[in-house]
């Protein structure tokens, strides 16, 4: 090899080594740089699905004088668990994204301290919980429902199912795919929906029939929706053969919003009688360093502007009574008129046992 080339290589090696040393020495000090002890910064800890319009947050920062830092900490369950693990020395001031299925775990572990944000009185009454202590505030709601592939049902001249009872009819044999209730939140929501509908005594019988009718279970939403469901973009490419999937009421509008060119109508629809309502809450973390900023941030989360910004970013519904919802939502993903619901306390009491029974009933 030429001397020039070898000099180059030597330089490259030296640079790599030097870079490494710099990096290592940097890590000793970088911790303090990011510390949020100063009162001008407020940190929101949330899950990966947290999304918003940048301009809106910017406006809040301008008005309040706080700089908002956002930490997305994994999927919904993970984020809650991480927050509980670090509650003595939290990573932020406000946590957003604990839903009704995990709320009790968060409250029992003392994750939050009381605060009633401005505007709380305008939150839809049935979503409010913990009214004595106000440790959490509802922020959004969404329905977990069976979605159907419109093209499949019109091609086969079959009416799409509308209720839980429909799903166990022979006409819909081998059409439904759902998620593992022990690892996936829509999977769990669907199980809870059946438990709410048929009761503690009846849901297992329902699932036996569902199993006999050929329900397929995969591990997560991504596999169910993108690989197995014939109505999704991925499903079409993968020649998926399940026209029914457990997903969200907001999935059809997402199919319209995230399409180019935009279709006139959504390719998928929702079976309205199969919905379980999920509510997501936020709260001030118990050992928050900036409680004042955290309170301002919570006020912001239920302000009209944020509530009306949520649908097209997070594909959820606002909880403020008169907050407006975009047309694409009303048209393609209306909230169910009579969703199944369960009180967080009841979920907490039964969840583990139900999931355990479900696992041995459906998976084994």
């Amino acid at each position: 090899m030429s001397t020039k080339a070898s000099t180059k290589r030597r330089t490259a090696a030296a640079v790599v080594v030097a870079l490494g040393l710099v990096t290592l020495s940097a890590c000793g000090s970088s911790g303090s740089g990011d510390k949020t002890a100063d009162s001008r910064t407020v940190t929101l800890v949330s899950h990966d699905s947290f999304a918003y319009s940048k301009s809106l947050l910017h406006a809040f920062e301008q008005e309040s004088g706080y700089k908002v830092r956002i930490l997305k900490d994994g999927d919904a369950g993970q984020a809650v668990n991480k927050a509980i693990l670090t509650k003595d020395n939290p990573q932020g001031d406000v946590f957003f994204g604990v839903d009704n299925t995990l709320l009790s775990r968060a409250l029992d572990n003392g994750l939050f301290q009381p605060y009633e944000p401005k505007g709380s009185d305008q939150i839809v009454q049935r979503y409010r919980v913990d009214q004595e202590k106000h440790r959490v505030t509802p922020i959004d709601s969404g329905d977990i429902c069976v979605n159907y592939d419109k093209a499949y049902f019109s091609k086969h001249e079959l009416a799409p199912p509308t209720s839980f009872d429909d799903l166990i009819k022979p006409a819909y044999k081998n059409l439904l795919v759902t998620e593992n209730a022990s690892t996936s939140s829509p999977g769990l929501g669907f199980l809870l929906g059946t438990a709410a509908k048929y009761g503690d005594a009846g849901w297992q019988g329902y699932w036996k029939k569902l199993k006999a009718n050929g329900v397929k279970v995969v591990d997560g939403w991504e596999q169910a929706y993108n690989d197995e469901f014939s109505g999704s973009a991925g499903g079409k490419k993968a020649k998926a053969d399940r026209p029914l999937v457990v997903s969200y009421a907001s999935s059809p509008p997402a199919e319209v919003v995230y399409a180019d060119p935009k279709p006139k109508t959504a390719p998928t629809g929702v079976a309205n009688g199969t919905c379980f309502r999920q509510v997501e809450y936020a709260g001030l973390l118990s050992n928050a360093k900036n409680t004042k900023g955290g309170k301002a941030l919570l006020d912001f989360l239920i302000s009209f502007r944020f509530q009306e910004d949520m649908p097209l970013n997070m594909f959820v519904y606002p909880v403020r009574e008169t907050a407006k919802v975009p047309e694409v939502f009303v048209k393609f993903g209306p909230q169910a008129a009579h969703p199944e619901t369960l009180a967080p306390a009841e979920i907490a009491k039964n969840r583990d046992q139900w999931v355990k029974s479900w696992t041995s009933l459906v998976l084994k």
Partner: protein
Amino acid sequence: MDLARTEVAGAAPRRRGSATRLWLMALPVVFFAVFFAYPVAAIVARGLEVDGVWRPGRIGEVLGQADIRHVLWFTTWQALASTALTLLIALPGAYVFARFDFRGKQVLRAVVTVPFVLPTVVVGTAFLALIGRGGLLDGLWGVRLDTTVWAILLAHVFFNYAVVVRTVGGLWAQLDPRQEEAARMLGASRFAAWRTVTLPALSPAVAAAALMVFLFTFTSFGVVQILGGPTFSTLEVEIYRQTSEIFDLATAAVLTIIQFVAVGAILAVHAATVRRRETALRLVAPETTARRPRGAGQWAVLTGVLASIAVLLVLPLGVLVQRSLDTPGGFGFGYYRALASDDGGIFLVAPIEAIGNSLEYALAATAIAVVIGGLAAAALTGRAGRLVRGFDVLLMLPLGVSAVTVGFGFLIALDEPPLDLRSSWILVPLAQALVGVPFVVRTMLPVLRAVDGRLREAASVLGASPWRVWREVDLPMVRRALLIAAGFAFAVSLGEFGATVFIARPDNPTLPVAVARLLGRAGDLNYGQAMALSTILMVVCAVALLLLERMRTDRTGEF
């Protein structure tokens, strides 16, 4: 994995001054203590401690559960089956890459390595195109293997093919074919000659490769989760479920300990195998052993291997590319263009910026891995005592510990100044470097050991300082190995998903994290962009690996 030493190595490098070795080991030891041992110990301890009281009895309780024993059994047998199947399919590949010269060999060697450094989240869905409904097998014979154990086994072959080709093939290419020819001249049949001459020389490399494949499949996570469906669970998957979903830290802690012990045992056997292999073999430069295939038999072997690579490895990767171009308006670059738009949704930045983030993180991780791994390899160079061998095993352990354990450990262990790194960007490269270091060590070590110790001694006697000895003697010889090690650490860091997804910050997701987020939302554009980003990640990895191919030297072998 690890490659043979040249005959020079037979000239036993003398024991280096133990003081020097301790100094060399200091930084790697501190690194592993702070960023691996301490966080993992902290989270395991949290699980086993209830209200301040130690409950070691939990181990027995957890092991007493039939479910857990089932998981242990499945983990073990699927790893054994995966290893056997990988060897069966990849050994002919190793032979072909070692002994045959054909057009495009370098490119192909890079291509078969791509799966190894890609995150499962990227290829899991594409792999379904091979074995799922409407896939190749379905089209040909109406066979669907998704959510069966076959999906898991075949995907393990897909991911680990390169381990066998590179480890075994690397040595095979350096075995002198004339020895076998000599045996045949003395009257041995072709098979007998191969069995008595080549096989014994090769078997330690096969054993080392098998153990590495066993380690990777024993700790398999994404493959089992995505392709196996909810009915199959390995230890690693179970640790994830218990920690991340069920939040039963006690069970997770016990499972972590079990996996730790198992992985430690695998690595100890591996280290012993490697040591036994350090007998001097007569090695020659690989380019002298490969030739154009001759005769129908050899062409048939070559064709068979190329066909198996095309079906098992290239097809799933090709599906990603195809889907990334398959837009509603026909084939085109629509999804790629969409990557550049900042929709203010799940990403606070345009998805395309994930490429820049990934490169930055991977560069930092590479720098750390090269420094730590390089120092460790230098410390391990001399004749190894028990302590040093233990250190060698320790360096490999991060490959066998679940990312979720490390991630949760980081959260509760690194939360106070001066080590409050939870919200620092450095956490991502640190976690990636943990995975990169073993590759650096395994690449550097054989080369360093091949440096004749007498050269160093001569330099010292002539008055050179240790630093100067290293610079004048070692560095020129290992420079290429260092670059190859850096390249491999870089590719592995690029594809690292498990730990990264756990700690990546929202404003700067890496490519695999961005892909996972896009796949987590409904809508054609999201799916298409995920495919486009996956393709970009694949191309970046392939280019990095191709550059490595060009740098491969006669004797570095390994990766």
